[in-house]
């Protein structure tokens, strides 16, 4: 019995050591894996935690959501960046409609290309994170990753305040932590946790699930025929042609 336990411990230790030297390979193309669309409930992502904004941020956020809902009821949707082909940035680019994302993994860097708007993010595996106030605010910020066993832990800072997930306000202090791992041979989960000491009462978390799309060839996405425009009331309109 004791010998058996020791043997199991040795196997577990060897597996752990191996996982540190040979991390999983996420290279490939991944599409959204959503409940209700043939997804196995056992592999479905857990529910998102509630977003708890500080009162001074919650009020304008709720007002904006209400105005958007009312505008949609009227059939006059309010302008959004994406309607004008402004890219989504991190983390929204990881879950745009049914568009896939492609991971390209090397020992020192993982590059993720989102099909929608051809967005690119780079996760450095061989260097430390910079201080938040040293990263110029942008759409993708700066991401570094490390392996925690078979989970890739990605830390992102430097997302500019106009680049919002679900219109949730954030400050220049926002920090995004992703935990990306296989939950089945061809299913990935990306657990996204967002912390912001300025706007949030507490961190919130949501999880994205992806299915492997073998042999899928990513489609180019250059936004050169955008007919949506914003009128002087901030309403999105569609240009129609005379002929």
């Amino acid at each position: 019995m004791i010998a058996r336990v020791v043997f199991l411990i040795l196997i577990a230790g060897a597996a752990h050591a191996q996982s540190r030297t040979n991390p999983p390979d996420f290279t490939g193309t991944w599409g959204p894996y959503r409940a209700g669309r043939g997804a196995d409930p056992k592999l479905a992502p857990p529910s998102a935690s509630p977003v708890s904004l500080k009162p001074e941020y919650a009020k304008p956020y709720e007002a904006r959501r209400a105005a958007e809902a009312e505008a949609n009821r009227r059939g006059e949707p309010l302008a959004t960046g994406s309607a004008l082909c402004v890219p989504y940035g991190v983390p929204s680019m990881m879950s745009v409609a049914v568009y896939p994302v492609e991971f390209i993994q090397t020992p020192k860097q993982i590059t993720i290309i989102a099909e929608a708007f051809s967005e690119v993010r780079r996760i450095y595996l061989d260097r430390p994170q910079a201080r938040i106030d040293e990263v110029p605010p942008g759409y993708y910020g700066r991401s570094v990753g490390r392996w925690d066993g078979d989970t890739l832990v990605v830390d992102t800072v430097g997302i500019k305040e106009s680049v919002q997930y679900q219109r949730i306000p954030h400050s220049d202090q926002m920090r995004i932590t992703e935990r990306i791992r296989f939950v089945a041979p061809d299913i990935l989960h990306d657990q996204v946790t967002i912390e912001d000491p300025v706007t949030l009462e507490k961190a919130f978390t949501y999880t994205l699930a992806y299915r492997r799309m073998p042999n899928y060839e990513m489609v180019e996405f250059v936004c050169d025929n955008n007919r949506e425009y914003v009128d002087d009331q901030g309403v999105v309109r569609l240009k129609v042609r005379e002929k």
Partner: protein
Amino acid sequence: MALAHHSFAMFDQTKPTTLTGTVTAFEWTNPHAYIEMDVTDEKGAVKHWSVELGSPSILMQSGWKFKDLKHGDKVTARISPLRSGQPGGLLIQVTLPDGRVLGNGPGRGPQAPAQ
């Protein structure tokens, strides 16, 4: 939580409309593809319509190819018209000259969520 390129609220999903006419252009472009078509009414007057589709990626996921339509093709398109009354709309489905019926992407069309 998935995001979409824009809200579809500008289209009236309660008033599906059928357009029968001639394709003047099929634009396989982003962020949306478009069918431009001339529609002749009972009195013989020609009106031009712009019909918005999903993106090429979304269309390909539901069986579309970039050569499925061309200038001069006769088609019947079912659309959700613009609420503004302008001659434009969002495709629900189109019947091609060879009889095939194509939709507007997987799970897409008038019921597509804004967010």
